[in-house]
């Protein structure tokens, strides 16, 4: 049974619709990411679940309990929803010590003070913060602050924990470590978590399922692999990875494949639902799927090399093909001039 269920949620600020009918479920022990560009409504959705935004219609249920129902005028205030919420800014109370920050939710739940102590200690030690209980938030590093914020949200065992860009306030390097650590923690503690992020890498690494939001609606949802490997829309494909993009006309459709013709090139790829023969189309392929070929062949282009960049573990090459820029990875530097590039049929989507 879903721990959290959102049905047909609409929300507008005045005349400006933010959510236009979003539905989703979060199952027990599952991590779901809300992914999308800024303005897509992902944070608004999270805040609506938390009770911090007032939707116009739709329903939100936590467990069996309806916490919001636009039709039935149910709107349980945030403080009664019993959710754990981790803020992007962490929102640690600077006037309380780490322990007091974590203990606050337990105090509000009238837990006996002895038990509060032991639960706070346990929560802090689980997050490797055991020795920092007496400190104030401003005495902690960013990573430590983030963990306190999580401890504070977890300590009273909410059925669902909501995280708003939990990693975005960390340095790039720390962010990668924290991502791994957070994923492990969520799994170990069997949390049900809804995580907002704008970083597709983070979403894929951390979640069981991704909900891709675009402009107030869910564009696509699925496992990270689904989302990455079989995007259903151009937006999903574009958002989920680093891509090459080729604009042309769909000249022929054969079974599940389509032929895209541009200025001086022709490529076959997998036809997306939206693609129609005779219309304009966009071809897309992940950067890492482009192959440097030794010579001409099926689905092979011959663009001009513009420059190469050394990334450490590999090279990235930039090519020009007419007005189109193509990028590809390779193990070594390339010589100036025209190069052969293979665009594998199975990895090239035509939208």
């Amino acid at each position, binding site marked *: 049974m879903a721990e959290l269920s959102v049905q047909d949620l609409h929300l507008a600020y005045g005349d400006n619709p933010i959510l236009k009918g979003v539905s989703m479920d979060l199952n027990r022990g599952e991590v779901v990411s809300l992914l999308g560009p800024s303005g897509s409504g992902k944070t608004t959705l999270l805040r609506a679940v*938390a*009770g*911090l935004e*007032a939707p116009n219609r739709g329903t939100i249920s936590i467990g069996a309990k309806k916490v919001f129902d636009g039709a039935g005028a149910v709107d349980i*205030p*945030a*403080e*009664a*929803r*019993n*959710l*754990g*919420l981790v*803020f*992007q*800014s962490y*929102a*640690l*109370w*600077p*006037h*309380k010590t780490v322990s007091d920050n974590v203990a*606050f*939710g337990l105090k*509000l*739940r009238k837990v006996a003070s002895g038990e509060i102590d032991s639960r706070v200690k346990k929560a802090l030690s689980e997050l490797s913060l055991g020795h920092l209980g007496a400190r104030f*938030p*401003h005495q902690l590093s960013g990573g430590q602050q983030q963990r306190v*914020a999580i401890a*504070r*949200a977890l300590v*009273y065992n909410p059925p669902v924990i*909501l995280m708003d860009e939990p990693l975005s306030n960390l340095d790039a390097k720390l962010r990668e470590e924290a991502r791994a650590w957070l994923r492990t923690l969520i799994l170990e503690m069997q949390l049900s978590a809804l995580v907002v992020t704008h970083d597709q890498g983070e979403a894929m690494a951390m979640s069981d399922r991704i909900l891709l939001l675009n402009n107030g609606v869910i564009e696509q949802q699925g496992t990270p692999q689904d989302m990455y490997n079989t995007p259903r829309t151009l937006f999903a494909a574009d958002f989920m990875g680093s891509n090459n993009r080729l604009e042309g006309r769909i000249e022929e459709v054969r079974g599940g494949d389509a032929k895209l013709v541009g200025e001086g090139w022709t490529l076959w790829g997998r036809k997306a639902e939206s693609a129609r023969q005779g219309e304009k189309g966009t071809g897309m392929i992940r950067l890492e799927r482009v192959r440097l070929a030794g010579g001409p062949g099926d689905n092979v282009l011959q663009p001009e090399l513009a420059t190469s960049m050394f990334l450490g573990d590999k090279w990235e090459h930039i090519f020009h093909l007419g007005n189109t820029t193509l990028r590809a990875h390779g193990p070594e530097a390339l010589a100036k001039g025209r190069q052969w590039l293979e665009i594998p049929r199975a990895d090239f989507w035509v939208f």
Partner: protein
Amino acid sequence: MAALAPSPDHAPQGALAGLFSWRSLTILLTAAAVLGPLSLIIYQSLLSAPFFEANKSVGVDAYRFIFADSDFWKAALNSVLIATGMVVIAVPLGGLLAFIMERTNLPFKRWLEPFILVPSFVSPMVLSFGYVVAAGPVGFYTVWAQDLFGVAPWGIYSILAMTIIAGLTHVPNVYIYASSALKNLGSDVEEAARSAGASPFRVAVSVSLPLIMPSLLFSAVLIFFLGFELFGLPLVLGDPEGILVLSTYLYKLTNKLGTPSYHLMAAVAICIVAITFPLVLIQRRLLVGARKYATIKGKAGRMRELPLGPWAWIAFALILGFVFVTVVVPLSGIALRAFVSSWGFGVKLSEVWTLDGFREVWNEPTHKRAILNTVLIGTVGGALTVACYTAIGFATHRRNDGWSRFIDYLVLVPRAVPGLLAGLAFLWVFLFFPPLTPLRTTIFSMWLAYSVVWLAYGMRLISSSLMQVSPELEEAGRSVGASRGLISRSITLPLIRSGLIGSWLLVFMIFEREYSTGVYLLAPGTEVIGAELVSLWQGGAIDIVAALALINIVLVGIGLAIALRFGVKLRD
């Protein structure tokens, strides 16, 4: 490089030298305006007679006298009690009101806010008088309550009542500081508390208010020493009962010995300063602490209002109750009294209706001049005052030298001196300092005293505007070669213009309401409503007191209305 720019530093150097003298002049004048009268008070307190009389001698007799006077100790105790009580009442209530108005979705709150601020802009003389005629033993409301319910279970002539009234009417002072602190507080910390399960009230008490603790402490100290300087309220409500506080004790000394006992008054004033000045210093420290605190507050994102749900009714009732008690009751009392010739038990208001009070004001050149002067000192005087404060502000802006620190402390000094005695000291200055004597019977004397007395208040307004100018903007100016003076004129000043206009409006309202500073400076030509009210009240010309008080309220109201207009514009 040198060849390319033959004398690039020539112009800046000249400007710098000019600025230097301009700056020293500003500092010098400020120091003279603050320390001159103060040293006169200290000197006077060490004499045995008015300093201008021949038969004086130096010594501590004045202190010996007041310390031996049981009334002094009673007054001091009452001052402590009242000041403490005021803190206990005003700080929590002011904080809570600020929370409600600043952080929640209470309906009509923009409409309610001006009413919360009204008590701070109405002269305490006016308010106290309003309470007498509205809620006194035979006040309008008391009589109505007795007619309706048979009882009116309140009294206004006791230490407790005075404390409550003083506490309530000082709520705006706390409110102002608390709400500006809350404005800067990110809403995420509150939302975090809500999702952790806290009700709006709990959010306020456990998160928002503790987070603005430095501001609350600051205003607590402010209220405490304002409690020591309380004058109008105990004069009207306490004096008839013989309940003295330090300032009314001081005032009483004017005549206790039959002839003026300036040395005793000065000694009392020094005792008050001895209490208030350390408090002012504490305040300053707290302010520095508050700035540190501000850097670690939650990230200020978009402000989101806390939905109150059913709490809205409680909040609404709280605010309406507050506004009713502190604004509606006294002001309606005055308004009524201004239009009747008599009042009290058994008087039918319909039979005593009159416009005589206003007619008398109108027929009396002194009162008309008082009204004109009051308007002038607020508008023209207020603008000049803000200009002076701005000059002082620039003299210390982004300079971390000894002079800046000196000015920082200097501007705090007048705050610690009770307005009553500051006014007296200025009278002496204008009487005995020859260059100023021709100006004594002009409104200039009043203006100078007002400007010095409110220096600390005004400098806070100015420096908060100056602080909002990001240093990079000024540094960018310097990097392209502008001198300090030029930067001040062409970058900083335009940037703080709206802040200055706001300060002007606040200074206008403060000057409209000021009363104690003018008591001794009142002379033909310097009449202002505030001081006239004290004098007329002492003289018992109650009809005129009521009419002038109402006119004063209207003036303040106009200022407030304009301020709100501007406020709205500034917010857009």
